[in-house]
């Protein structure tokens, strides 16, 4: 009987051993071991960390229920003390109009009954291109365009980006910038709230970036846009319909872009 017991113990050890060996496999869904888990996840809040599970303890109340949040509508980040700059970065005064009622990003927003897109014609770009800042602004615009627009609108702004070429987007309606006849305020409105098939980009781009992009897009329409001669005089010929001179002095256009 004594021997049997010993044999049984051995058998049990063997079982356990085999079990442990069997569990020795690399599991890609496990992050592995940590030296000091409490130092890895301290009570200080970091983005995208699930504080509902610390060292195996689950707290249902604070468990992550949402990974990514849209910025709160009309939240105002701190933009320094330069009043002209702060003025530019203040929340956009134009509201989405009735065509945006079914757009995910504006669900539950105040929808304007007016034709806001038409009204946006009056807005002018608060970033004024000068001989000094033109090159840098357009370079920034190119960077932004490459990151945010070029996959649909194409590197040359002809509406033939890789999304279209690959066949992922099979619709139509991507304009060729060179023939696009809209005012810069409307360009801003379209980028901010989206237009036709294009979605809203207000959560990805701030107002300064959108206005920079507007400058860059106008380069597609006019090769001389943003180029200056030796005396600092602009070489570009203002196209009809975009920034009419009469509006430049319009006080309404200056406020709260």
């Amino acid at each position: 009987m004594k021997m049997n017991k010993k044999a049984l113990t051995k058998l049990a050890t063997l079982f356990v051993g085999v079990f442990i060996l069997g569990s020795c496999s690399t599991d890609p869904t496990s992050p592995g071991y940590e030296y000091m888990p409490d130092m890895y996840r301290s009570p200080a809040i970091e983005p995208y960390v699930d504080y509902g599970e610390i060292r195996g303890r689950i707290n249902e109340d604070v468990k992550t229920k949402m990974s990514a949040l849209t910025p709160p509508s009309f939240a105002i980040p701190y933009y320094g003390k330069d009043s002209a700059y702060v003025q530019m970065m203040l929340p956009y005064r134009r509201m989405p109009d009735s065509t945006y009622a079914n757009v995910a990003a504006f669900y539950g927003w105040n929808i304007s009954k007016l034709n806001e897109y038409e009204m946006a014609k009056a807005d002018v770009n608060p970033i004024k291109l000068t001989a000094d800042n033109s090159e840098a602004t357009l370079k920034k615009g190119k960077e932004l365009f490459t990151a945010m627009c070029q996959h649909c609108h194409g590197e040359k702004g002809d509406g033939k980006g890789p999304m279209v070429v690959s066949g992922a987007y099979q619709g139509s309606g991507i304009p060729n910038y060179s023939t696009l006849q809209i005012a810069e305020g409307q360009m801003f409105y379209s980028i901010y709230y989206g237009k036709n098939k294009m979605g809203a980009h207000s959560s990805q781009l701030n107002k300064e970036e959108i206005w920079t992009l507007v400058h860059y897009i106008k380069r597609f329409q006019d090769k001389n846009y943003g180029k200056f001669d030796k005396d600092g005089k602009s070489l570009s010929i203002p196209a009809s319909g975009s920034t009419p001179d009469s509006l430049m002095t319009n006080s309404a256009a200056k406020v709260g872009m």
Partner: protein
Amino acid sequence: MKISSSQMFRKIKNGCWTSLVVLMFASAFSANAQDGGALFSSKCSNCHHPHKDGTGPKLSKVREKWETGGAKEGSIYKWVNNWQNAAASDPYAMQVSKTKGTAMSAFPELGKKDIDAILDWVDEQPEQDAAAATGAADGTSAGAEIGKEEESGLGWIWIILAVIFVTIILALGGVRRQLKLATGEQETGKIERPTYTEEFKTWAWKNRLYVGLGSLVIVISVIVTLFLGLYRIGVVEGYQPAQPIKFPHAIHAGVNGIDCKYCHSSVTKSKSAGIPSVNVCMNCHKLVAGQKPEQIEQIKKLYNYAGWEMNGTDGKFNGNHKPIVWNKVHVLPDHVYFNHQQHVVVGGVDCKQCHGDMTKHSDAQKVWTVDEINALADADPTIVKLTKPTLTMGWCIECHNKKEISGGSLDTKKSGYYDEIHKRLKNHDRDLYEEYLKDGKVTVKELGGWECAKCHY
């Protein structure tokens, strides 16, 4: 007769040992087949499908196809390494090269074993009913899960088999011993029952050289394994958690050329690169509902989260919005400060340096191993080759030591951050400045990148 029965038992026991060893080899082989799956998804799945012709032909039973087609032995492996070499040496391969217009990439890094592993894995894949795949969205995901369960179930079968064999071995050993004791009793008439320990001791003493050497090997390997195990603590290389939606980076960033910064738009503005909110997905996906059944299924999940009802080519938002909970992949300990903006905007580091080449990665996002990232350096000279595991402190400081802050001239950085450090260094410590310039480059370390408080405070 009695002795021979004892021998018979010994034979059975030996047989069992052999089968156990064979089993172990077999389980090692099944691990190989799993590697084949990983290799297939990383190298081949962009163009090939096991059972469907895509950009490239289907791969199921391709070896048999080549063999019956009259290809030279081994030329399929040559083909994978570089199809032009194979076409030059084998008429069958030449013929294959003419059938399809799109040229296959060369994979010189794949050995014969790797290719066999891939093709073994492909041959094992069950052919799914195409009609079932296009059916209910949940149906296909269930199919995929069944496949997974089978895979993990197989591991258990091996373990159970091993346990059964070991039990048989022990039982037979016990029976043999009893028999031997019984015969001993009959022959000598004395009751002599040495315990297992005593028996073992005599046996060990008899073979003391081998036992000693064996135990030495065991002790050393246990110590080595222990240390290797300790070195893996805190290393998250290869971590690839499951995600609520199978998001293929290769299609978004690769085929469709969407810049990383389009979705991870806060990378240039904030500490965190940001996970896009659902409205960013819907900017495109309100129009793009997917073409292949597996794409349609995944995008349907997205529509569920977004509360979007797709109707033909247009849709409507219904307000039933459920947020997505993604599983965080790159987790840094809380006691280290890391800022994306500083690295991407000021440092000008490419995303690839830490996150790998997502334009070619169709699986769920994972922590790339340092070897995988080093392999990208051949194509992209801006990538710094490192040795320590990704996301460890050794890896961070190794890069800070190697990475030049700019190509020789400090003034090319527009931020002014390095200019300021540069100015102070020049004005306050001329000797140190000269020393730094000796090797002709200025690294992050030389401008304070190795200060503890840079990351830990």
